[in-house]
């Protein structure tokens, strides 16, 4: 192998309370036990399938990006990214090391494929990025590999469509697989599943929607990409819209470009974690 390759995609919710539970040593409590149990397999899988780089799609929750500047898509090209203070003080987790060389390569390639990225060279990262790392890697002294943060605007409307996200995933795949170093790259899509954090409708959970989403994400991502925003809001809550980010990771898998169908290495679903339904999936390229 001489070129970089996407070997697998990982999908997971990034609930802040999960980070707090871990950081405060509550992961053994009855409330949290079933959540972390769902990631036991994943931690072993990560140890056995350690990537060289993780391309991590998430959304910033009004942390690095205020209302002064709201990028639709932002790629982190810095050497490192510090865990943010979201108001509770920064999470006690390792600094995230970037991969500026691959990130710059992806930025160049994806912009030349007509995606209008914002290039970010300085950024703190919030729970949207660090909670998935904690879930998949536990509580190490350092994260197992460099991470390229890729932030999607799902805070201020209009947010990018599912279709746009899916197409972006395809472009990212092309970009990564044209990088001439033999890197094992995983792409992660985070956020979701059904949840609503605001108003009298707070607490909405829709298990049927979530499980149908997981089914379709595996078997028919192209079709899933056509789902309009309003369906997410109506069925999965106003913050359920975060699920469009999963389509970026899915669009980067081999089958979408005519390759073999991915293997479902792991699937997990649980309600609740705080206000949220937790969903998790690992797909391997063959």
């Amino acid at each position: 192998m001489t070129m970089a390759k996407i070997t697998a995609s990982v999908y997971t919710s990034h609930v802040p309370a999960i980070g707090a539970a871990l950081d405060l040593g509550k992961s053994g409590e009855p409330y949290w036990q079933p959540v972390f149990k769902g990631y036991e397999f994943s931690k072993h899988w990560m140890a056995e399938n350690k990537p060289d780089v993780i391309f991590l799609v998430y959304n910033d929750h009004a942390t690095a990006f205020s209302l002064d500047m709201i990028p639709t898509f932002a790629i982190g090209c810095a050497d490192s990214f510090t865990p943010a203070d979201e108001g509770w003080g920064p999470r006690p987790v390792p600094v995230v090391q970037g991969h500026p060389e691959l990130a710059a390569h992806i930025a160049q390639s994806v912009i030349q494929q007509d995606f209008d990225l914002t290039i970010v060279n300085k950024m703190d990262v919030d729970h949207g990025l660090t909670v998935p790392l904690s879930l998949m890697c536990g509580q190490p002294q350092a994260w197992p590999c460099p991470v390229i943060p890729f932030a999607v605007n799902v805070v201020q409307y209009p947010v990018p469509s599912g279709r746009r996200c899916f197409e972006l995933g395809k472009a990212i795949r092309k970009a990564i697989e044209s990088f001439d170093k033999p890197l094992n790259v995983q792409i992660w899509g985070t956020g979701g599943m059904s949840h609503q954090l605001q108003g009298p409708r707070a607490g909405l959970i829709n298990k049927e929607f979530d499980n149908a989403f997981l089914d379709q994400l595996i078997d028919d991502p192209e079709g899933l990409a056509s789902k309009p925003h309003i369906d997410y809001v109506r069925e999965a809550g106003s913050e359920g819209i975060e699920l469009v980010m999963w389509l970026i990771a899915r669009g980067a898998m081999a089958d979408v470009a005519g390759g073999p169908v991915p293997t479902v290495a792991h699937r997990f679903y649980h309600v609740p974690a705080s206000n949220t339904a937790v969903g998790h999936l690992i797909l391997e390229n063959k």
Partner: protein
Amino acid sequence: MPLDKPYLDVPGTTIFDAEQSRLGYHLNQFCMSLMKAANRERFKADERAYLDEWAMTEEQKQAVLARDLNRCIKAGGNIYFLAKIGATDGKSFQQMAGSMTGMTEEEYRDMMIGGGRSAEGNRVLGEDGTAQAHRQPQGRAGQKTTS
């Protein structure tokens, strides 16, 4: 504006679009300032004085002082920004979200453990789900008025 806003008929939900963003600009930027520990200290020491440093409307300031997140959202706040106020108060996202329903903390937590709020009746304005206007506030406070 002729652009579609298909999200206006979802009950109990305010979508943070450009219009809300403009309305809430200073409120939300105030919230961002609470990401610095020193600002949190200053805010806690004298909330009113700290708020007066921002070009917020009086209604926005009152809504913050009252920790009424529904009022904050109506005034242009977005939950991810407003969460910084809750964080400053040492509150969790679950406590913040629950506070917008009228339920007690326990009621809301129990609802979530029981599988969360159903989408049934809560998809479109005018149905009869728990998030509809005629059923607010929810929980004990709400039940009292109907029992």
